[in-house]
């Protein structure tokens, strides 16, 4: 997709739900809104097995070059920008049919330089069962990640994503996923890095599919973390669940917008969205706006949002066990963030995310 195509798209209006809180002009790396800089560095992508073993047959990561190889059709300004900026480069992570592995795959994406980019496509073949840990790191001033995934039929796909970019980075992440018939997919995201982060994550469920997304975002200083999540049930008898826990300290801000769409005729859909925010300072702010568009009759669709400061009774309880104020707060915040991962079905994924969060919070205590 070319820069000229990008230039033909209108700058998204802030009247749109997805663009209300972080406009494109704040995200664009140079501010020249119809230009795509030509000095992007490709992020380094490395694949390995968590247990140190060799990558099994049936799993491959290859780099391809093509001008037009996105899995989905887009008319989104940000996606068109990323497709133009990547210079045709695409990483393809392919998991063949019937691939079943017992140890998680580890994919490291490291973004360096002033401007960095990565386009990754994930294709999971039918009847596969895999766990993938994604680590996003690096010192890039601006990093754009476009990830696309097609999960075949009757698969189990479980991923954990740690985003721990430099605290000064701007991070634009856009994703589109299809979860195939009778497949189960879960995603746990730990969002820690970046000063300005916008993630636009869109998932479409097939018949009988289950998709669950659990997000923990730890915000401090001037960090702004904006998640826009779209879950679409075009057909019925499937299940989606979205849980987001944001903790906000300092002058940070967390924004969570969600659109849950259940199409006409998609009966038997079961969907829920829960947004929880923990506000740790008077200048911190959190906005959670779940939206439902339900066009089918026989469905279960629920959503809820809550923001609260630290519970003084929880603080008292922990302090009565000898923990000082700072230690108590850290434990409550850590617990709040970890609790978002409570329903992750695979221990290898949830344990890894919890471990990474614990290290992150322990480092914060030492600062």
């Amino acid at each position, binding site marked *: 997709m070319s820069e000229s195509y990008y230039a033909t798209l209108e700058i998204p209006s802030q009247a749109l739900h997805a663009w209300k809180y972080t406009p494109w002009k704040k995200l664009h790396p140079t501010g020249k809104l119809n230009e795509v800089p030509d000095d992007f560095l490709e992020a380094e992508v490395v694949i390995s097995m968590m247990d140190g073993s060799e990558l099994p047959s049936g799993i491959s990561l290859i780099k391809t070059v093509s001008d037009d190889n996105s899995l989905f059709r887009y008319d989104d300004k940000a996606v068109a920008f990323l497709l133009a900026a990547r210079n045709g480069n695409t990483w393809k992570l392919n998991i063949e049919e019937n691939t079943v592995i017992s140890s998680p795959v580890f994919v490291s994406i490291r973004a360096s330089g002033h401007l960095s980019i990565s386009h990754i496509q994930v294709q999971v073949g039918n009847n596969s069962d895999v766990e993938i840990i994604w680590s996003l790191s690096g010192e890039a001033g601006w990093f754009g990640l476009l990830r696309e995934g097609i999960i075949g039929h009757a698969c189990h796909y479980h991923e954990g994503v740690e985003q721990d970019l430099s605290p000064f980075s701007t991070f634009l992440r856009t994703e589109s996923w299809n979860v195939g018939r009778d497949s189960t997919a879960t995603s746990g995201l730990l969002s820690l890095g970046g000063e300005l982060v916008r993630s636009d994550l869109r998932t479409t469920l097939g018949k009988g599919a289950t998709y669950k997304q659990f997000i923990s975002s730890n915000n401090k200083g001037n960090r702004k973390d904006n998640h826009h999540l779209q879950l679409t049930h075009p057909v019925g008898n499937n299940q989606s669940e979205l849980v987001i826990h944001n903790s906000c300290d300092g002058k940070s801000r967390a924004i969570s917008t969600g659109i849950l769409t259940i199409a006409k005729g998609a009966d038997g859909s079961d969907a829920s969205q829960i947004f929880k925010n923990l506000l740790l300072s008077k200048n911190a702010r959190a906005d959670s706006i779940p939206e439902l568009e339900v066009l089918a009759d026989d469905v279960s669709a629920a959503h809820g949002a809550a923001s609260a400061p630290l519970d003084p009774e929880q603080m008292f309880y922990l302090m*009565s066990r*000898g923990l000082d104020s700072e230690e108590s707060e850290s434990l*409550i915040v850590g617990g709040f*963030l970890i609790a978002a991962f409570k329903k992750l079905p695979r221990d290898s994924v949830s344990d890894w995310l919890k471990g990474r969060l614990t290290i992150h919070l322990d480092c914060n205590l030492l600062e």
Partner: protein
Amino acid sequence: MPTNCVLSISDLHVSVDGTAVIKGLSLEIQKGEVHAIMGRNGAGKSTLANVLMGHPAYEITQGEVHFNGTPLAELEVFERARAGMFLSFQYPQAIPGVQVGTFLRKSVQVVRKDDCPTNRELRDEIKAAMKVLGADNSFLARYVNDGFSGGEKKRLEILQMLLLKPKLAVLDETDSGLDIDALRMVADGINSIVDDAACLVITHYQRLLDHVKPSHVHVMIDGTIVKEGGPELAVQVENKGYDWLEPANA
């Protein structure tokens, strides 16, 4: 003050939101003693427990409290815990996302700083304490009080007490919500610390006191102690209720 005096309360007055709840209470507890405070709902029993631990909602308006010779007012909540005070809560808080095992380890590390067990020693101690309380290993992986039954919450309180080895244990309605077997296990836990600690047991009923023998029993009505005695007083209260102890009837 005698050297064995762990807790000394003198003419304590406490207010909550400007309302007087404790109105002149005095009490001394020595090491090795078990004091029971009985009283109706609203008598001020739980207020006393919370004040001792330092809950910020309660204001001491008059009187003094010393814990092991130190004025309590000088100690923050966490410093009281580190100095050896333990409160078993009537309604323990849930801390979602924090595993019991992690919580116990952190708590033991700060409270028993001078006598901190190694990880292996702590594991053995936890195992032994859980056996006393009839709790299984899965307890440790669960989140603190999150989704716990009333009985499980009380067991976790006592498990913490056993591991923290307090000098003063204040047990606020620890018997409520327990079936008879759980009550016996919790009582065994309390009995195992009484030789080395002072205990203040707050309760409505005598049933816990069938298993934990108090050396002193105090009856509290309207924010003050109206009657003191030995274990026989608890039996009298159980049989006769509290009306006969009302100041107007006494």
